[in-house]
């Protein structure tokens, strides 16, 4: 108990400092390595730090020096000097392994939250490079996600051939929205694992993260497991809130503000037959997905339901229109339309 308390006090003290340092570092990084879709890395934006092995190697060299000095053995001292100077040569070598690489990335990425997408980068180089790994600098969210998923979080190129190569960097989408893509961490320990040469490049691209598609919770509890049926239900439910059908207009007025409780009540009263009846009616009309007519839930939940519906419609090639409180997207069924709708959800 005490330990935990201490821990929390400690973390309470440390985490703001850490966050502050991180922020300062990011600001500094923006100034140091400005964003751009095309970048060339050189001495201005490559950083080199010794790895843990590199640090322990320094101690090893010191140990050899001590050994040589204590035995007054010049050859051992010479070897320790040789290794020391080799260390510095390797430092330069690991720098040159990255220096001069050109990167180009002009595609923004889109995807559902919690899914993994790939960010394409074109790398061009004039000599062979070794062991370059690319990953997104996703920090805390990444560790949270990797605990659940075992997908790779980085791409490692063992040997980067001369010329242009296309590289796909895995990116885990963390939160919904339309925001700037974080920096790509490009690192290499090539040489001997003594040094880590790295750079973080901001390709000035955007992420459009669509809400995570979630099926209706109540539908699932009702119909345990049968996927096809659930889908049907979901659609039918959405359809039930379409404007333009006279009978429903009235009902809407009657139940204003508490659509979920109304549905639940009806369900209990009528059993399973009610839903199918509504569905048949709707097929004749135009499908509209309306944010306001969704059952109550948090904003993110509602968006997730909509996202699921859009995804589903697009898969089954059903045309639909989307109505959000701030915008309306016209009736269509092209893939562009789907993307537009999803983007609207992401931005909402």
């Amino acid at each position: 108990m005490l330990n935990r308390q201490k821990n929390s006090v400690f973390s309470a003290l440390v985490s703001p400092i850490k966050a502050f340092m991180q922020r300062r570092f990011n600001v500094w990084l923006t100034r140091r390595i400005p964003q751009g879709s095309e970048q060339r890395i050189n001495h201005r934006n490559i950083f080199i730090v010794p790895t843990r092995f590199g640090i322990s190697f320094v101690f090893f060299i010191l140990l050899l020096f001590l050994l040589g000095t204590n035995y007054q053995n010049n050859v051992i001292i010479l070897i320790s000097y040789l290794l020391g100077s080799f260390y510095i040569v390797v430092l330069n070598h690991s720098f040159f392994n990255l220096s001069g690489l050109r990167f180009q990335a002009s595609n923004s990425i889109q995807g559902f939250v919690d899914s993994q997408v790939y960010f394409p980068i074109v790398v061009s180089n004039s000599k062979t490079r070794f062991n370059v790994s690319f990953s997104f600098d996703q920090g805390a969210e990444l560790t949270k996600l990797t605990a659940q998923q075992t997908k790779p979080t980085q791409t490692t190129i063992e040997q980067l051939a001369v010329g242009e190569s296309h590289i796909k960097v895995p990116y885990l989408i963390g939160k919904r929205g339309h925001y700037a893509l974080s920096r790509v961490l490009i690192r290499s320990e090539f040489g001997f694992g003594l040094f880590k040469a790295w750079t973080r490049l901001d390709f000035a691209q955007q992420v459009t993260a669509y809400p995570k598609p979630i099926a209706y919770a109540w539908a699932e509890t009702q119909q345990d497991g049968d996927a096809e049926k659930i889908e049907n239900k979901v659609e039918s439910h959405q359809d039930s809130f379409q404007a333009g059908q006279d009978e429903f207009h009235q009902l809407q007025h009657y139940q204003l503000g508490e659509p979920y409780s109304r549905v639940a009540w009806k369900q209990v009263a009528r059993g399973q037959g009610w839903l199918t009846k509504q569905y048949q009616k709707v097929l004749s009309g135009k499908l509209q997905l309306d944010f306001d007519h969704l059952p109550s839930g948090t904003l993110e939940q509602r968006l997730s339901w909509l996202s699921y519906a859009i995804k589903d419609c697009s898969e089954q090639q059903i045309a639909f229109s989307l109505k959000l409180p701030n915008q309306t997207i016209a009736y269509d069924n092209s893939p562009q339309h789907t993307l537009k709708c999803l983007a609207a959800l992401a931005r909402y």
Partner: protein
Amino acid sequence: MANIKKRQSKNNSDIKALMLNSKMYFGLLALQLLNLLTLVLQFHWLYLLFAFFVITLQFALHVKLARKHLKTSSTSIADNQYSAPKILPSWLILILAITGSVGIAIGGKELGLLLSMVHLLCFAYSLKMFEIPKRKDVYQLVVLGIFVATSSLIFIQSIYFSLAVILLVFANFYVLLNLFAPKSAVSAQAKLLGKLGLYSIPFAVVLFVGFPKLSPFWEVPSVKSATVGLSDSVKIGDIANLALSNELAFRVSFEENSPKHSQLYWRAMVLDDFDGITWRQDQRGSGHGAQQGQRGQSNQRSQNTYGSARLENSINSAYVDVRGAGVSYQVIAEPSFQSWLFALDFATSEQSDVGRRSDFALFYRGIISQTMSYQVTSYPEAVLAPRLSRASRQLNLTLSTQNNPRLLAKAQQLRQRYQDDSAIVNHVLAEFNQNNYFYTLQPPGLNNNSLDQFYFDTRAGFCEHYASSFTYLMRAAGIPARMVVGYLGGEFNSSGNYLSVYQRNAHAWSEIWLPDRGWQRVDPTAAVDPERVERGFSSNLMQEHSNLSSGLFSMQALRAMQWYKQFKMQIEALDYQWTRWVIGYTGQKQHRIMAQILASLKSGKQAFYWLMSLVVLALFVGWFKQRKVKGSSQHKITQGYLNTLTLLAQHNVVKEKSMTAQQFAKYIEKNRPELSASFSAITACFEQFSYQAAAQINEQQLAEYLTTLKLHYRRLRWQLWLAKLGIH
């Protein structure tokens, strides 16, 4: 709780076993073999057996595995990766580790501290090969390997061995290189490694020459081995045996011309205590302070004896009358595991670890367990001890046993015949010369080491026979006398310009004390076999030597060939230079060389300043050029516009590459209306400048543009700052 969980998850991610290709495994094994081979002479046979077994086992297993993988995947060796198999269960490894350590601890007494530590290190290295589940383990294995290879240099430091070890140390990095670039060819990897190794030489050399040589930080266990060369007690026949050895004892390079062969009497130690059979160093009386040569003395004790030895030096130096010119030279002694140093009379050395005993012999304060170099200045014309202390006289007249009655009688007879001491000496030497005495490496045996028997009957012997009986005679005749052992002569290597002294040059001679002339060297050998003293072994002696010393495979034929001699001389010269400049690069030498460099810098001051200013100028020009390329290729207005863009980018207003200046201005107007007034002015200036033909704008207009641009830039910067601080 949370901590444990974290660790577990960490472990989980680490558990992914390290996959290595078979090239790597074989590389590791081969390097392990080579690393252990450097120490092979030091190993106990049990460990040798174990290490051999381990390597063979691993090798066989990896061959099998590599074959299997090759069959299944049918790709090249570099591609077929597998994680290290668990050959032995970890409990077995643990048991092995424990038994091995216990075994080494038990054998520690026999092995000595240093060797036990080496064994422990190598044992860990052998066992480590069984467990390489992570990348970290490969790192450890490599570092261990380098350490094993390097520690072999404690025992051997010859040039070829050292170079081989240095190469091996770099070869160990191959494993790491392969870890990161497993698919590149071995030749490419070797080339890269060689290149990086070569690059690291210059700085290492600078460090070696310039970095101050430190004295040892603490006492370390020294290398223990059987003593080599002269020992501190000489019986008849000992030196003749030693003279069969072709081992190198020490090497000398004189600063100027080397003295004549007959002057090269290298004093190692003085033996003044004779019990009728064995000559020893005096253990009693005045000489007691100089017993430091005894092995196995505790540190404390030897400290004390050094102290008193030093004290005696200061007293005894009053007894030396230094005259004439000094001869300076550097001696590089091979490890003898004793303390004697070798020098010509009368030797002085300024080195702090070199002491001088009251009998004028030099000694090292410690055990010479590795090649050691020291600087000496000798004064051949100095008079040693013009006055002799009573105790010393007493000591050097003692005839402890009376087992040589005939010699004693002869001495008394001589004493009666001659009043003058030198007359007695001359008489004895003349007898040696004229009375059919033989100088031979194979003297006939003597009963109970009787000097009588040699002197009167067999009349054939090696230097110690003559020196021994001569000294005995002198003492019996009342002349203070003692025996000196050391080396005589040496072989001059013309290509290296140095003198090598081998064990076969071991020699014994006498020293007698004459009033006013002090200790005088008398070499009875010179009377018997003058050639030995003038030039070295005579051809007869050489023949004898080669007959006795050659083993089953005689290299005699090869040795006789001229080209072989030449070749050997070259190689030895190279080794000598290595020993002299690398192994023998002491702090003192460093001091001298740094002073020389400084002096030469001072003398070439002018040139140095010129060079420095040239370098500075070159750097400056290079820097300026780079700046020019970066900045001034564009006009100031364009630059101003770009500066503005940078400023905006710093405040998160970024112009996409695809936007034109106009579009960006509009973008700003839309998104950051508060900035648009200043920015559109800047844009206007920029566009005016870039899209009008250069001829149409005159200087005045340009200047105008520039001032507006600068003004608006400042305004913009101010507004951005305000915005950042939240003030609108």
